[in-house]
């Protein structure tokens, strides 16, 4: 029988190194495989998020379009018809002196229709800009005398340089915040400020009400979710620092063109 002359030292050495290299390669490829899966998963989640964000934006845009259409129809058709009715009624009752009770009634309906159409779609936004439209909105809220709104606009007319989508989003956000203040906050005063900071347009909204439970609001508040969706739509974000009294929100929009107008 042939004598085995293999070096046992080298054999053990190779065996040890061989098994170690196998184990190390296994771990190396395992990590690479897991990392690739993680990247794919992340990309898939991002795509899903982007898709749902696009859906949300499309919903909000179509909602605005629908509001605009209904508002225009109300204003142009129903409003015009009511005005005609008022004229016709005036001619009809001319023969019957003293019968003018219909007038305030029709005026009231016209005014209500006008308010509804303006709430659905602010007509002044494209014509007169955000600042004037906001003033009109605040006037409507101030009418009841329940709440006093102070609006400080350091940007002046520059604010009107926003494109329609951004202006409408900011208008809706402020409208939503005001509605929330009236519904939940029991506040007496609201202060809204617009100014520029580090090249961004800043809007701060503050009331002196009972404040907001931020955790609860994030979970359940459809209103605040709407605000956040609209902010994302115009690449803006909000900050809600804890304040000693009332509610405070700071909206930061990167709409630089408005500041260089």
């Amino acid at each position, binding site marked *: 029988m042939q004598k085995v002359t293999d070096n*046992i*030292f080298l054999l*053990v050495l190779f065996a040890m190194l061989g*098994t170690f290299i196998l*184990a190390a390669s*296994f771990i190396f490829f395992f990590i690479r495989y897991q990392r690739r899966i*993680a990247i794919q998963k992340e990309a898939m989640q991002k795509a899903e998020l982007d898709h749902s964000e696009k859906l949300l934006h499309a919903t909000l845009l179509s909602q605005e379009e629908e509001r605009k259409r209904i508002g225009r129809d109300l204003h142009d058709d129903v409003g015009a018809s009511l005005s005609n009715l008022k004229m016709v009624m005036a001619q009809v009752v001319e023969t019957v002196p003293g019968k003018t009770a219909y007038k305030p009634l029709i005026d009231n309906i016209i005014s209500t229709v006008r308010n509804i159409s303006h709430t659905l779609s602010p007509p002044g936004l494209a014509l007169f800009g955000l600042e004037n439209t906001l003033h009109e909105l605040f006037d409507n809220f101030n009418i009841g005398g329940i709440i006093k709104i102070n609006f400080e606009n350091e940007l002046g007319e520059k604010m009107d340089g926003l494109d329609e989508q951004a202006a409408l989003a900011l208008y809706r956000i402020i409208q939503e915040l005001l509605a929330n203040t009236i519904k939940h906050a029991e506040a007496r005063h609201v202060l809204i400020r617009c100014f520029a900071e580090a090249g961004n347009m800043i809007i701060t909204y503050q009331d002196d009400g009972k404040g907001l439970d931020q955790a609860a609001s994030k979970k359940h508040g459809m209103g605040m979710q709407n605000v956040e969706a609209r902010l994302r739509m115009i690449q803006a974000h909000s900050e809600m620092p804890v304040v000693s009294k009332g509610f405070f929100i700071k909206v930061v929009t990167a709409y630089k063109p408005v500041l260089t107008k």
Partner: protein
Amino acid sequence: MTIDFIGVIVPLSILLPFFIAIYRWKHLPAGARYIFLYLLASAVINFTAVLIGRYLHKNNMPLVHILTAAEVVIFLFYYKTIFGHQNKLPAYLSMAVIFIILCIVNALFFQSIHTYSSYTRSAEAIICILFALNYFARLASDTGNSVKMVKQPDFYFNAGIFLYFSGAFMLFIFSNFIITTLSKTNFMIIWNIHGGLLVLMYILFSIGFIVCKK
């Protein structure tokens, strides 16, 4: 001056994960505490072995028999904990008892307590490699955790266990054979490589203890 790698650096390297574990004790989950227990058992038995072998010039092989049984029992409880097999305690206890019996039978009838327990040591390596592979298989199927894999202490513990026992497996098998056939220089080269594998495992254990978050 040359520092004795196998006699000084390797035994002292166990202190790195040992002290990190003590420092971060509050953050260690139950599984990591079993790894600490393994380090404690290894440290006590290895230092005693060095003391007996180097200074008392007596055979310290009986300690290897004890360490092998102790390590397997600790690793079994470690895997029971990280696999969430709380209701399978009897199965793990049975495995531990069977292994201890095998160690005793081996020491009484096959490999004297004054020789290296290569059979049980090799069996220990196989058990640890299988459990570590099971851990990796679970990790691969648990896609929810894949993102934070490198932040899981058990990943480092198992990488250490897997690399050490895979590398040392052949040494465990042939240990008694190479004691009698190899020259002292070659014998020391092999055991230095084993020392390197141990240091690698201790470093991975240290990283595992560092990333522990309870």
